């Protein structure tokens, strides 16, 4: 059978790190900060998680340290784009490049190896019901952030800051403070994503091990229009496309074709969702222009 529990499990495992990072990206997007540094923050999380787990023997401390380290790393974006008003895109790319170099350098200085650090005694996260605890946390984070953004005053203010910072400021809400909070939270979530990848999906660190997952998370934010549930669906789509791609290889489809699967799916989804948005906009336009109340 093509769709079975193994395929679903594989998809869900692939989904977790992307989902955590994408939720962070969504919060930033809502606060008006375009965060493309997810990949770099995640990679910092991977390294910190592995290093901390190795030296303390506790993967939980590894998770905690990863969240803190990635949050600290995200300050580059927060200070750079909010306080110093730099371009978030440039900062994000710089963060991604810096993270690859910095973690490779640290791998050499801390562990004295190049490429990959892998040791049978490195402690990874335990599995609960087939998944790491961070996977459950990721699912919970979808619900929490959805409620936060739609119901809680903090989330509503965050959205206000993103959509109309001047208006928010006149109401006494400090845009800078909310933007800082969103970026730092995205750092924490990316740190968790990195810990999940390096201590959950696998138990090792290798240079550039995020391998584009942060970029997929950026696309998931756009595809899901920065709505937590939308982001979840987008990430799920990627996970399924990837797992199905592996399965299709077993049925004789060439690797080059299955590699393209997640991107083809993205393009199709993007076209469909844009077309739908257009149609909806066309339907509602006459009523909004006709009546001014």
């Amino acid at each position, binding site marked *: 059978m093509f769709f079975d529990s193994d395929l679903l499990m594989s998809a869900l495992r692939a989904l977790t790190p992307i989902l955590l990072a994408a939720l962070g990206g969504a919060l930033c997007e809502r606060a008006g900060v375009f965060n*493309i540094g997810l990949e770099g923050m995640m990679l910092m999380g991977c390294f910190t998680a592995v290093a901390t787990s190795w030296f303390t023997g506790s993967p939980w401390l590894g998770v905690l340290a990863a969240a803190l380290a990635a949050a600290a790393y995200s300050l580059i974006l927060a200070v750079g784009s909010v306080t110093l008003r730099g371009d978030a*895109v*440039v900062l994000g790319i710089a963060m991604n490049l810096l993270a690859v170099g910095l973690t490779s350098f640290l791998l050499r200085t801390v562990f004295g190896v*190049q490429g990959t650090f892998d040791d*049978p005694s490195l402690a990874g996260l335990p599995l609960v019901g087939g998944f790491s605890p961070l996977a459950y946390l990721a699912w919970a984070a979808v619900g929490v952030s959805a409620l936060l953004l739609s119901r809680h005053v903090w989330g509503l203010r965050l959205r206000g800051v993103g959509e109309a910072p001047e208006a928010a400021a006149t109401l006494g809400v400090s845009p800078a403070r909310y933007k800082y909070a969103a970026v730092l939270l995205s750092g924490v979530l990316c740190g968790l994503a990195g810990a999940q990848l390096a201590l959950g999906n*696998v138990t090792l660190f290798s240079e550039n*091990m995020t*391998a584009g997952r942060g970029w997929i998370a950026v696309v998931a934010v756009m595809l899901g229009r920065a709505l937590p549930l939308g982001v979840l669906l987008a990430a799920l789509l990627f996970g399924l496309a990837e797992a199905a791609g592996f399965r299709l*290889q077993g049925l004789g489809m060439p690797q080059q074709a*299955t590699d393209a699967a997640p991107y083809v799916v993205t393009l199709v989804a993007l076209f469909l969702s844009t077309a739908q948005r257009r149609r909806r906009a066309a339907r509602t336009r006459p009523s909004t222009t006709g009546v001014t109340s």
Partner: protein
Amino acid sequence: MPRTRTRRSRSLRLAAVATGSVLLAAAATGCNAAAKDDAADGGSKGGGASFTLVTPDPVGQNEFLKLAVDGVKAAAKTHDGTQKVYQSSDSASQQQNVQAAVDAAPDVVVLVGFEFADLVAQQAEAHPKQQFLMVDACTTKTYANVSCAVFREHEGVYLAGAEAGLLSGSGKVGAVVVLDTGQFRRYSDPFAAGAKEAAPKTSASTRFVGGQSPFDDSARAKEQANSLLAKGTDQVMAAAAAGNYGVFEAAEAKGAYAYGVDVNQCTSAPGTVVDNVIKKTDVAVQEGIGQVLDGKGGKTVSYGLKEGGISLTGLEDGVESSKCVIAEHEDVLKKVEALRDRIVSGELTVDDPAAK
């Protein structure tokens, strides 16, 4: 410059992201071009022959490159000469290191890896008196001053496949390989052929890692291995660079077995890794240098089981202390040794997927 943050500008910003990342990546490599020439002088005495080894990556813990360094050192000792090692970190420093090596005009410039094929072709044409030795790859055109040492990995992989066929309980073996190219298929097709030779009812299947960074993505390689294991495969050949560790983890979790490449990888997952297809770069470098000095340069020498350039950890000395699972299966090793002898004598030839 006006700073307007509107939703409409997002597509523009995305375009900027794309071009920006390309430009920055280019700039970053450009900066690194201040080459990292870790010149390590092997000896101060002159007079004898001199050899320079240029590596495509930093040597560090890279066992494969370490062996090449050993080979050059051994050659310097045999020929009472001196040696230098230039370690590259990216394509820009590769180019600079090759140039620096050629400028110093040693007796032989040794280069390891396919990355150098085009560079060597250019330099060999420009400097017809300089002797080059390429290891693990060759230039597309032949030059009188370029010698090549290439490996027949498929022969070793075939033997590993035979071990897998004999050890498999489910009759299903598989391979997780970096990319779907002829060169990398040397790690999958012969594995299946060897398994079928040893146990004719064996079925085999392959997964290619692929994706954005196939050489780094251990999580993806692990899922590929999982998709094989889910179908009942219990012996997995791993030729996925950093992904190998992911394959080992997947096999360990399911109680299955894996096979490593290039060097002894049994230590990273004792009890899971059965054996390794090892590539003896030191032998190739040492012998290659000898041939060039003897005036027999300009040829391509292929190293396989017969020449001792390719082997299995299980067939080498010290298998007892290798932490490899194969050490516990002497009966299997006996059969594999017999198979090796048939390949060495020429009675049996292993199909080369890269030759197709």
